[in-house]
């Protein structure tokens, strides 16, 4: 449908512009704000792909939690409000080379995949995609094991963060 394509093109332009601005604006806090726009654009893309659950989760997790966290982190860093030092350090050429190589490899991989050259077959739209997702995440034949492993990883990170936080405070009390 033509309307979908127009919306997709506009969203794509907005997302890419915002993403470039994230890494190029001098003020850290502005970078965080552009990041929010880029993330919101991704949510729109999910809607266009008929994945409302992912769109909503994208907004909750990335805009509602992670973006807010990033803004907090930026505001707590040194001189965040008037930071206009040099944006590149001496490794910039190396970093650019590595990024380009990674981009080339990923593009090559994608092009060698069948889906890149053929138009996708429009799958029968299932109204209960959430049910399918939930069942596949809790089904031992499905993704139960990776899902639980990821949960344990996150739990370990949480415990680790608390441990580091407490250690620091205990050290202070001893002084």
């Amino acid at each position, binding site marked *: 449908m033509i309307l979908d394509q127009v919306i997709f093109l506009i969203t794509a332009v907005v997302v890419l512009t915002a993403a470039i601005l994230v890494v190029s604006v001098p003020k850290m*806090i502005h970078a965080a*704000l552009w990041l*929010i726009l880029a993330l919101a654009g991704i949510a729109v893309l999910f809607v266009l792909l008929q994945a*409302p*659950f992912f769109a*909503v*989760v994208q*907004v*909750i997790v990335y*805009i*509602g*939690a992670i*973006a*807010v966290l990033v*803004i*907090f982190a930026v*505001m707590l860093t040194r001189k965040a409000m008037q930071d206009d030092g040099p944006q590149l350090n001496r490794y910039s050429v190396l970093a650019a080379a590595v990024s380009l190589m990674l981009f080339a490899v990923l593009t090559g991989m994608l092009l060698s995949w069948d889906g890149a050259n053929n138009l996708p077959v429009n799958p029968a739209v299932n*109204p*209960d995609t*959430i049910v399918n997702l939930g069942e596949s995440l809790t089904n031992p034949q499905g993704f139960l094991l990776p899902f639980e492993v990821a949960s344990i990883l996150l739990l370990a990170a949480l415990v680790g963060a608390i441990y580091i936080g407490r250690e620091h405070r205990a050290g202070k009390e001893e002084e």
Partner: protein
Amino acid sequence: MNFLSDPVTFIGNWLTGLVASLGMPKETAAAWVTGVAVGILPLLAMLWVLVLIWYERKVIGRLQDRPGPNRVGPFGLIQPVADMLKIFLKEHILPAGVDRIPYNLAPILAVGGVLGMWIVVPFSATVHGVDINVGALYIIAVGAIGTLGIIFAGYSSNNKYALLAAFRVVAQLISYEIPMVLALLVPVLLARSMGMNTIVQAQPVWFILAAPLAALLFFISSIAEVGRSPFDLAEAESEIVAGFNTEYSGLKFGMFYVGEFLHAFTNSLIFTALFLGGWQGPGAEQFPILGFIYFFLKTVVVHFLGIAIRGSMPRFRIDQVMQLNWKLFTPIALAAFSAAALVEKLAANLGDAARIGIHILVNAVILGVVLLIGSRVFKARGIRLDALAERNRAAVKLSMEKSHDS
């Protein structure tokens, strides 16, 4: 389709027919009418704020033993209109050093986040914006956008008090989102769907019966999400001037208040839809207009409760707000949610009445455990509730005597 029993659908169909008869394809006509409806709904919601402001000032006035607005128009009904016109005419002051784009975007996000919630509210059996299958989650997601507006306002104002206020409000909002989401998952679990209309349709027996704890947590957390008394840390004048909106003036300042009043009412709408059966009631399926009336009446009751709490409770301290959330609400919400899931799975074969009975029993047990632990903690810390109450009474008596003297 009868006009009297279902006016909105009737008008929609009539308009679609009218536009189609002018020579437009049926589908395009329907799209245009939908577009018009999309414009009308937020407009009505914004105008509804005028009534809300009058109603809230009147109720709080009565609670505080004064008449409330009573000069402009009958019962002061025109007062909000006068205030609105005044605020339209006020100057927009742009303080020095503000970050313009976030500064101007903040009030829009604050109101837009609230208006976005109206899309998924099922007003009657036939009238709802869209019935997306992730409606309940969508409400939380859109609420997060309002949080963003507050950060924008605090950061861009170039004012340390505004920034501090934004920090503490956002900390509060993010924290209270957790028990709110967990409490919201209980009706989702009971209805086996996240679509708002499906949740309402699943409630011939209101969910507040099967999930009283979740309903209570959702209600309190939603008050905290709006940031009203007793959670109105956002406007603790003695600590942070006027809060995150200190540097705003005129209509931009007004937008934050429109957002707050509308948010309070919208949360009542959502509470009604999730826990009080929404538009459900006798004859609501046959005559959708009746469903609309039921929904409205239930919402007004919930909203009144919120206003009554706002008018009668003192403000918490910020550390108390955080402790209440992390040490009380989040654990209870987790327990209530897990218990509801377990009961739903284990008692799936029992009849509705038996299952609801087990749900109530489990909720009572959780509440009992919480009270038991609470009394132990109080005892261990040497806090005696009767002594606290005695001290409060003495303080109230003293302040009343003082006000009589002066």
